[in-house]
């Protein structure tokens, strides 16, 4: 099909900033192609620790409390395998990223979905979590800003969840890959909250903030004994993250802040244009506080998410993702990624308006 505008891909439309690419190219020219420490280059871990101290007042020891991984994807996988005994349960708020449930299952665990609702801006209600805790619950997975909903949570809301984790002695896995894509309020990092540090596996990376999706580079910060457990698996499966990607990530942290800030400013502008447009069409969508997704309800059209997406593609050549793939709570919604050129967003809105009017 020609001329399709895709709002379906979950990655930045920016290329990795040149200075990051150049640093990596230079490292290859210089012949830096060996294995690194299993934990990752110490220089990178040191920079990660510095960044987290600067932004979130966290004090991770680069020598023992940080593990550089092949993307946050690997950090999640290794964390679940390290923490879960067969049959252990993990509370996972949904709608959520499609990998979480399967990763828990690969590790022999049981994913327990926790509903979040549009009426509460897709934030997690501690009562919904508490109601689902059992003697087999091992961990709670949080992911804010959230894919697909764009939801963010503030200090109070997150503290309530941390308090629950403390009460039931649960681990907290916090996927904060969209931390820098927080628009209206500064990002609250779960691991900074009272009671959290000793039980939180904080995961982050470079894919979204620095447009390094294909580089496959991320990290986990956690108490030393957890990192050690994760490292035991990581050392046999991955050995280490690619050195070239690590060096690129190091450059991103040292000198890539302005590039990242500019990209985020651009996402913010597009967010307002696009979400404003959706509401004008009648696809109700409160302004999401983070990430680069809009998750409007299509209920007013009488169609469910899947039918809406299918017909929109066929009739107007605009691609969106039906919300149902992200969990029960997503049915009746569609996910639109606004990480694409403003002209394309404007044209997509025009076509969506035509489509909705035709129903």
């Amino acid at each position: 099909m020609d001329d399709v505008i895709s709002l379906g891909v979950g990655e930045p439309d920016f290329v990795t900033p040149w200075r990051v690419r150049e640093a990596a190219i230079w490292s290859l020219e210089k012949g830096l192609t060996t294995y690194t420490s299993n934990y990752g280059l110490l220089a990178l871990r040191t920079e990660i620790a510095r960044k987290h101290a600067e932004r979130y007042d966290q004090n991770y020891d680069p020598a023992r409390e940080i593990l550089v991984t092949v993307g946050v994807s690997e950090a999640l996988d290794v964390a679940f395998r390290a923490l879960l005994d067969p049959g252990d349960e993990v509370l996972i708020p949904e709608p959520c990223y499609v990998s979480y449930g399967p990763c828990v299952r690969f590790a022999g665990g049981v994913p327990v979905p926790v509903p979040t609702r549009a009426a509460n801006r897709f934030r997690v209600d501690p009562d919904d979590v508490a109601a689902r805790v059992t003697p087999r619950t091992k961990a709670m997975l949080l992911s804010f800003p959230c894919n697909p909903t764009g939801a963010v949570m503030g200090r109070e809301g997150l503290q309530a969840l941390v308090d629950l984790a403390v009460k039931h002695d649960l681990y907290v896995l916090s996927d904060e890959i969209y931390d820098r894509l927080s628009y209206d309020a500064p990002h609250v990092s779960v691991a900074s909250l009272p009671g959290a540090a000793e039980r939180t596996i904080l995961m982050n990376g470079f894919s979204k903030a620095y447009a390094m999706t294909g580089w496959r580079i991320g990290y986990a910060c956690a108490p030393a004994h957890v990192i050690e457990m994760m490292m035991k698996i990581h050392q046999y499966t991955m050995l280490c993250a690619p050195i070239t990607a690590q060096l690129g990530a190091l450059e991103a942290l040292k000198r890539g802040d302005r590039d990242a800030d500019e990209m985020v400013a651009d996402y913010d502008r597009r967010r307002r244009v696009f979400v404003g447009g959706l509401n004008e069409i009648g696809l109700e969508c409160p302004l999401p506080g983070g990430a680069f997704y809009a998750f409007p309800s299509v209920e007013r059209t009488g169609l469910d998410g899947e039918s809406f997406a299918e017909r929109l593609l066929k009739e107007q050549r605009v691609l969106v993702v039906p919300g149902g793939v992200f969990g029960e709570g997503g049915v009746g919604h569609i996910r639109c990624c606004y990480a694409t050129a403003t002209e394309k967003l404007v044209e997509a809105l025009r076509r969506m308006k035509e489509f909705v009017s035709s129903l």
Partner: protein
Amino acid sequence: MSREHDDDLRAKVLHILEKDARVTPDRIAAMVGASEDHVRALVEACERDGLIRSYRTRVDWEKAGEPRVFAFLDVAAQPERGRGYDRIAERIFRYPEVHSVYLVSGSQDLRVVVEGRTIQEVATFVAEKVATIEGVRGTTTHFLLKKYKDDGDLFVDDPADPRLAVSP
């Protein structure tokens, strides 16, 4: 309409837009004696074909309270068989803080314009990222001290039109 006439009209339109990008198609049409539709089509074609590279707003950031540091670099570079200075030029021009890269006659020089927030920032950039490129033999950095005229805009006070409102 003859080819010559079209080219002539196009040149007129481009001259107008070059001075003021915000002139509307209907105003341009009146100025050049063509229809508004014809002007719109012409401008769109120029955008598509790269005759119009971009539309910018020229901002006096110092007045806006955000002074910038500019530096002009002379980069002495070793040309390469088959690629000339292209590889080195590309390595430099891809940085967003690099405004311009030119190959100029006179010596084996690339002339580069860099923008930063502080002198330190620019100097560090040159030392770490430009001077270290393989094939670069040396750099000379000239920091901009005062702008009189930049790209056609005056940055010093222009005496107002001295003519009397009504003259004999």
